């Protein structure tokens, strides 16, 4: 028991530090490709955190969707746009200053609010993060929302086609 807790703590700190490093790397890298790769590090670390919580399905989806599909998309866009090194990321004006202060205030506020929840012990064995209970829930209790999400996807698909389709005169 003791050993398991130690390993979990070690894993938690490792993944947390890596995840934060990735996030900071994303923000401070001027080269877009490096920034994107830092984001991959962040995605993988978060997947590791999910895994250490017993949420296997979420971890797999995190890697497949975010680290896989979305990152490929990012890299393609960077490649197609042939982005140069970003200059002047850290210029400061009143708007950015205000946004920075407000954002910082929001984070501080959330820290205060969530403080009471930091030391909560996770109760019992996690079973709902595995694939089987999720599949069962999706096809029983959550059947209706699961089916209805497909409409969002159809609408998004139509939108993507409408926006991306070549402009010809008779279709306007």
């Amino acid at each position, binding site marked *: 028991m003791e050993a398991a807790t130690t390993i979990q703590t070690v894993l938690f700190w490792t993944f947390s530090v890596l995840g934060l490093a990735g996030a900071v790397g994303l923000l401070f890298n001027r080269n877009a490709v490096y920034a994107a790769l830092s984001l991959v590090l962040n995605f993988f670390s978060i997947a590791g955190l999910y895994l250490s919580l017993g949420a296997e399905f979420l971890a797999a989806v995190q890697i497949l969707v975010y680290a896989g599909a979305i990152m490929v998309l990012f890299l393609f866009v960077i490649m197609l746009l042939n982005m140069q090194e970003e200059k002047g990321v850290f210029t400061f004006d009143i708007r950015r200053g205000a946004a920075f202060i407000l954002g910082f205030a929001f984070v501080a506020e959330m820290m205060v609010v969530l403080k009471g*929840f930091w030391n909560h012990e996770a109760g019992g064995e996690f079973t709902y993060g595995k694939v089987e209970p999720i599949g069962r829930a999706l096809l029983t209790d*959550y059947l209706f929302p699961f089916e209805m999400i497909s409409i*969002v996807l159809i609408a998004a698909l139509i939108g993507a086609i*409408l926006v991306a389709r070549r402009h010809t005169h008779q279709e306007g």
Partner: protein
Amino acid sequence: MDLHLLGSDTLAIAPLLLLLGVGLLIMLLDSFRVHASIPWLAGLGMLSAGAWAWLAGPSQSQVVFSGMMEAGGISPLVTLFLCLAGVFTVLFVPDYLARHDNKVNDVYALLVFAVLGMVLMANAHNLLMTFIGLETMSMCLYIFAALFKTDTRSNEAGLKYFLLGSFASAFLLFGIALVYGITGTLDLGELSTKITLLQENKALFYVASGLMLVGFLFKVAAFPFHNWTPDVYQGTPTPLAGFMATGSKMAAFVSLGIIIEKLELVSPAVDNRLATVLALTAFLTMVYGNLVAARQTNLKRMLAYSSIAHSGYVLLGLCAPVFGFQAILFYMFIYTLMNIGAFGLLGMAEQRMEDTDIESWKGLGKSSPYMAGAMAVFLFSLAGIPPLAGFMSKYQVFLSAIREDLVVLATIGILTSVVGAFYYLRVIFLMFFQTTEQPSTLNLRQKMAPATGIAVLVLLIILLGVFPSLILDPIRAAFSSDLVIEMASQP
């Protein structure tokens, strides 16, 4: 979930499935190049879905699909209202698109899906469903905003709405996640039994409901989150902007109203600062919307700011539990009629960009008196002048606020309506009493479908102004059969 209930559950949400089927059929027909019948199919589909919900919907309030959706209670009425918003919009769209050389028939499928999303959102009994409905609706509206690809205004509108809207959705989702964190459930019925748990974790609950409120207030364009409204409405095809300003707001307000009732966000029994936040937002929205609308020189932007002001009045109604909720349902229905009418008529006149300038409406009373008369009815009604329906709806909202001792807010509402009357009446004055040398350059071609739409809307506005009980009585009856809202409203 019980599998043997699947049949009756499906029957209870049959109007939704009808909408879904119509939307898919439109996509299919479009790929076979069957173009002429598509708007009719969309209109008839939405009309019959609304009628089905209203006539054959379950009379008793019940939850279906493991508590995901609510059927019965107020939901048949809300479904009817939302479908009617879609039907009236579809009357104006084909003519408008044809005039702008844009024959994208997917618009009708998206319109049906948008109505479907609104119905999902307004009838949701689970916060997860609320979010899915909101996203379905928003996704379609983003595309409407970006429909004219070669028009930079439309591009701006689409991008602005999409980015800000996704941001607002994320706020809502974060709030919902925190509610789940506190209570372990998203079911609105279960949540209303866990009020004490929410009240115990007060700080977290404030953050959760605050974040959810941000999401909703963005969708209804309330004061600090309104900045997108004029630009987006201006870039969106005019009849669809009317739909955006009415249907999506109705869905968001009904959903917010249900959440407020069930989580007792403004209940006087519970000490809650959110009621103050809501009242303050209502105050600022009413004042800001009306004052800025009065300074506009473009009719479309003026209507956009006026829709912000109208959101303020509805928020005022939300501050008053139960009676206010009934009043805002009435208000939103009337507002839908007159606003779709005003935007539709504006769309019928719009050929070039400057046609939406208020100046070019000068002297329209001479050149096309019927259309100018219809516009005058819509604007008089928006201003809230008796005996039109707009007056009755404002009256109901202010009455419900005064009943709950929100006298100061109601007074401010009445005062800002006076400012509102100024800018609506200015347009009417220009149309009828401003003499110009040359007649109005506006070319109001009267096609069959939009002209019928205008006539029906004008008749409805006059009829409901004289006999408001035609709609008010069904609303009251629906509320008294809605067990969950009744229960939540007991002290």
